[in-house]
């Protein structure tokens, strides 16, 4: 009887020590799920979800504070992938999905106020005070944050058109012949 208790107690101590050691040794810094959620988000940093960037939105999703359908740039595909990751229901997107676009500055109208430069979350606008500004299209994420601050309304969003660089082979579609 006493031997049995001793054995069980010994076992408990050994296992407890092992678990305690493991919890210190293999401690995970931060929440790995946030990283995974953030990897799915498109990193436009546009704030259309109501959070100041993709990371805060990922954290809010992780805490259960935010829904998964608040990211318009991510589109329905993003919602789908978030739903798969988190085991939640797929919901229709809150806002309408827009075609991908990049900002364009009409250089004739630009007065060089630098307001758009301050608004750009990814430093994709070059220019200086009282000098013409321009957007580096390769770096622009299409977040539209530079559009409202412009006092002369010289920034427009240009949809990205299909060209030889971004053209994709289409999914093979079988033509269905009409029965006569």
């Amino acid at each position, binding site marked *: 009887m006493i031997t049995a208790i001793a054995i069980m107690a010994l076992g408990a101590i050994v296992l407890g020590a092992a678990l305690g050691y493991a919890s210190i040794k293999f401690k995970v810094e931060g929440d790995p799920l946030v990283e995974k959620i953030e990897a799915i988000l498109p990193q436009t940093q546009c704030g259309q979800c109501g959070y100041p960037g993709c990371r805060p939105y990922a954290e809010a999703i992780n805490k259960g504070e935010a829904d998964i359908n608040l990211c318009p740039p991510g589109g329905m595909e993003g919602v789908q992938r978030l739903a798969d990751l988190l085991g939640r229901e797929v919901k229709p997107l809150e806002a309408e999905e827009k075609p991908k676009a990049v900002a364009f500055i009409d250089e004739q109208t630009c007065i060089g106020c630098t307001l758009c430069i301050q608004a750009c*979350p990814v430093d994709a606008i070059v220019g200086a005070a009282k000098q013409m500004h321009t957007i580096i299209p390769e*770096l622009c994420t299409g977040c539209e944050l530079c559009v409202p601050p412009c006092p002369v309304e010289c920034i427009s969003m240009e949809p990205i058109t*299909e060209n*030889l660089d971004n053209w994709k082979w289409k*999914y*093979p579609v079988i033509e269905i012949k009409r029965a006569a």
Partner: protein
Amino acid sequence: MLQLFKFKGGVKPQTNKTQSLAEPIGVAPLPSRLFVPLHQSIGGTPRPLVEPGERVLKGQLIGAADGWISSAVHASTSGTVRAVAEHIAAHPSGLATLSVEIEPDGLDEWTERTPIDHGAMEPEKVRERLREAGVVGLGGAVFPTHGKLTASKTVPMEELVINGAECEPFITCDDLLMRERAEETIRGVGVFRDLLQPKRVLIGIEDNKPEAVAALQAAVTKLGERFEVIAVPTRYPAGGAKQLIRVLTGKEVPSTKRSTDLGVQCFNVATAYTAWRAVAHGEPVVSRIVTLTGNVERPRNWEALLGTPLSEFVALGAPKADTNGYLMGGPMMGFEMPAMDAPLVKATNCIIAGSPTLFPPKAPEMPCIRCGECAKVCPHELQPFELYWFARAHNFGKTQEYHIFDCIECGCCSFVCPSRIPLVQYFRFAKSEIWAREKEKNAADQAKARFEWKTARDEREKAEKAEKLAKAAAAQAAKKAAEAAAAAAAPAAEASASDTPAAAPAAGSPALDAEAAKKAAIAAAMERARAQREAAAPKNTEQLTPAQQREIADIDARRRIMETQTAFNAEIAETQRTQSDEK
């Protein structure tokens, strides 16, 4: 005799090569217009160097190579540049690309050509010459040739493989090139040999082209070279680079490596020919041999200028009435030309006129029965039926697990599929989706990094500003404390000193001096007031004597009057300005 190896899989479609072999290579007449696309090879898009209205000569540089992996583009004939604008490309998408439109003047006048002696030059200079001459892989992949001519530093160059297999049905342009221009081709191979210094040079030709084998053999003997001309069994796709390397050397290039990692490099025969023209004659690539065959009255090979519109080129062969489309490339890997004014480019080895009898419309696709025929014929030993399944389900991660990027899109699987599934189309779709996602992911990562950097910078700037403000406030406080202390000590001394400047001139008494003395007194008083104002920043005022406090109150009162005055003045100035603005 060299021992040959085998590659797995492959098919034997009807070759259909004899039709276009009856006549020698013809020189295509000058077309009425040329549309030379600037982006004709893999790599950076060349920058246009000409403007509308400019006269150009044949071989004149019109697009400068952009970056090292990029190749120059030249005017195909002499004439006038009509436009530098978007024109439909020889591409399955039917999209436009920046092209130079040239109206030929009929003179076909060459620009100055400077041959070089490649043996006496630095290898680097020879590579540069090939880049400037626009020499690219003419087998179909159009990779800039100079980029492949640097020997690996770590792996010794064992074999140089020259690809004359030409395994696709219908195409005969390399066959006729080897028959008619064997010597120059071999000399071009010599240039590659000199640059790469391989131990052996192997020229592989399918055994259905005995004339080409004989011609090259004769040229090799004549030039006293030690190249081996080898007939390889006819079996599609023996002309794939990895397949030919396997057949000739027995080396199998692993999926993660390139052939250069195994000490093997591979070039097409037509590339060797153009390289020789560029080196020995200073001629850039402005034309190429194109097979015109299929549903035409006169199938033949033509030396056609790059940029010739398809409509003018096919007229040379007189297409039959029931022609319903034109394929660029072979029937296995080619694509339908999007429009009749799409131009011939460096990648155009063959144009096949199609007709309902030649290429009957495909019967509808049936479900996959998993018979495994596709896996048997795949030269890369992939499992097309699995790839098909995952590509169809948009499960791109799985397609990569099944090595979709090893697929060379040779079309063997589609060729044998009893359910007539367009397998290659599914694979192309999956590949371009994966590439697009990869690009998007990279862009997102970059955006994230930039965003984090900007946030960090904003925070740092804020912290720096706060620190600066705190420092300034502290300095101000210290200064004021010091001044207050000085002010406390000063009044007594100042009271005696302040009288002297006014008193001294007054003692002099002449009337003229009195005026000056008054002015001096006023100046001194103002000076004093200024000093006092500066000194009397009201802090540490608790321990002052009543007299000092009175003084401070006086000064403050004076200052207030002055301030109201300046404000008043400013207001007047403001109203005046606005009035003038309104005017």
